[in-house]
């Protein structure tokens, strides 16, 4: 174990719980697991895994910041910060010129505009159901008998996107069934689905304003199909950093580290 200040950021999302461990502000390790029914226990398991990897115990931790929809349930947390602020900070750390962050999680999506200091300048969240989020894509992939990992490949294979008008899971599912029965290629349907998700995001993106670089975070950032559709609609490159899925946890850990630094200075 190295001497220094260990900080954990933990993002308890609706689908996955992500944890990031920093040592003096430098990334040490990352861990991710599905969110169970007991949010505190899941967070605890995530933290234990991070610590175990580095041979640490809870006593070695200087600070823990929790974020995500289950942030208030994490009992060991020293501070809770919303996922909006954390994704903003995490995205700026992962992509230093980030101006706009698009975070699509399991059940919601957020668009965050950052100012020159990397602070949140404006944000908007979807307010309805799971329309156009990770859960929507999962249901569609299931219906098409394919994996989410294949979306990027199939998107590129499609000559033309199918016309999918709705991101409502129920309506879109019946559209997909109807298109399949007409013999439409699954690749075209997948591209159509990705376009529909991107269309839905477009209104939100323009509400806060497009400031390059555009960075995508959250679970859906790993879906290359959605990223390609977004790039096309925005006529803008969309950056997906390696740790995009853990941007919230990383942002939480960075804020935690800064708070520790402040405390030490005072």
């Amino acid at each position: 174990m190295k001497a220094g200040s260990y900080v954990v950021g933990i993002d308890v999302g609706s689908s996955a719980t992500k944890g990031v461990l920093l040592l003096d502000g430098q990334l040490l390790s990352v861990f991710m697991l599905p969110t169970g029914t007991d949010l505190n226990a899941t967070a605890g398991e995530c933290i234990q895994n991070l610590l175990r990897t580095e041979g640490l115990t809870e006593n070695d931790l200087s600070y823990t910041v929790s974020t995500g929809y289950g942030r208030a349930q994490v009992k060991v947390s020293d501070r809770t910060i919303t996922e909006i602020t954390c994704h903003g900070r995490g995205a700026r750390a992962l992509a230093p010129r980030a101006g706009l962050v698009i975070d699509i999680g399991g059940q919601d999506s957020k668009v965050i505009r950052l100012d020159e200091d990397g602070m949140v300048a404006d944000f908007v969240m979807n307010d309805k159901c799971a329309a156009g989020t990770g859960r929507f894509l999962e249901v569609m992939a299931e219906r098409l008998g394919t994996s989410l990992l294949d979306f990027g490949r199939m998107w590129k294979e499609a000559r033309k996107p199918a016309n999918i008008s709705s991101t409502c899971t129920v309506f879109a599912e019946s559209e997909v069934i109807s298109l399949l029965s007409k013999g439409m290629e699954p690749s075209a349907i997948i591209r159509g689905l990705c376009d529909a998700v991107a269309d839905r995001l477009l209104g939100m993106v323009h509400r806060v304003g497009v400031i390059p670089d555009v960075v995508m975070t959250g679970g859906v950032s790993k879906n290359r199909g959605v990223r390609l559709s977004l790039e096309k609609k925005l006529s803008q490159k969309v950056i997906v950093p390696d740790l995009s899925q853990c941007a919230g946890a990383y942002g939480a850990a960075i804020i935690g580290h800064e708070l520790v630094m402040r405390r030490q200075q005072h």
Partner: protein
Amino acid sequence: MIPGGIKARKSHYKIAGETRRIKIMRALSRKSWVHGAAKLVINHMEKRGGKPYQIDAIRCFADDFRHAYLKQKPCIFTSAFVPNELIYGLGGVPFLPEAASGFAASFGFARESLTACESLWYSPDLCSFHRAGVGASVLEFAPKPAAVVVSSHLCDGGKRSLFQISQYHDCPFYILDVPYTCSAQSLDRLGKQLEKVARSLEQEVPGLSGKYMDEAFADSNAARNYYLDLCKLRTNAPSPWRGSEALNYVVLFLWSWGSPWLPKFYQSLRDHAEDVIQSGDYPVPNEQFRLAWLNLRPYYSPKLFSYLEDTCQVSIAFEEFSYMYWDPLDSGDPYISLAKKIMANPGWGPIERRLEVIGKITRGFSIDGVVQFAQWGCRQYNGAASILSDYLRKKGIPFLNLDGDGVDIRNSGEAQSLTRLGAFRELLESRRIKNLR
């Protein structure tokens, strides 16, 4: 006129939805050669044997659009239930963004308009006819208004969305504050407002003058006579005119009263209906059931109606929005006359007024069932569903409240709508069998 104070600056608006085809359409719509070419195309359609009423309608809309886009006449934006005799009577051309949304949807341009609107923070829970109207305006795909006139009755979204359009274009905005109940006092109040608006428009908008008012009233009354003839013919079973098409022409009913071309159009349409009845060449020849259709329709998808009319052999015999609700206008007392027209709208006032009209339609057009198209976000009409259901049940007429969206395809599930219409047809059939027993 509503006072301003904070100047709208277009640079404050960040707008999405500006696709290449929107840019092209916007540029083309302002070229005089395009409007000239449109005339040639319409002439060609006529020579190829297009139906006269369809050619008339296209030609006349093309004329109005030419005047509006090329700024040959002042273009006044109005909400759906403003009597446009006022605008034609002043020598302007009206433009109804709400109704134009239907055009945008049928030509496949709604998505851009809706995206533009949402990027300006309009909620997707608002009626899409209004959202698309705002979108088309801010994308400047619609013509530029010289002024905006709205009425306060019936629909909150209409007046609010048009207020915002007036802000965007920084043009005068007028509201006719319509009293709820019709009395001498309320007619007087509304009449005075109409007169004030007319006077102010004359002063504020160059090119407007009240000298055409008599003409507009005469045209409106003449068109009304032909229209009433057409309504009589539409009581015929089988129906002489496809209801799905009639629902498209509701746009004219909302838009064109007072225009010099409306009498000719309704005359052609009346003649067409007469010809159909004489020849027996009905659009739904094996008509099994007759429906009354309430509210508007989805403008992007013909599938719903081909299923209803061709597969199910069910006619839409008459539409709520096609109901002639006002008396002939009196040019001797123009503003009170227009006030009476506004206040005669059966959608205004207590629900009993609307029920009375629906009752008249069901009786007059031998209606077997009533379908209300429950437009997403339309609080004006959807809110009466429980009452309509009860009222029609007591009269023994089945009622279907069909959820959907006339412009925003994302709010509609076509498969679900087809299933519900099919089930409704089966219900009508089982009732008929039961009655025969």
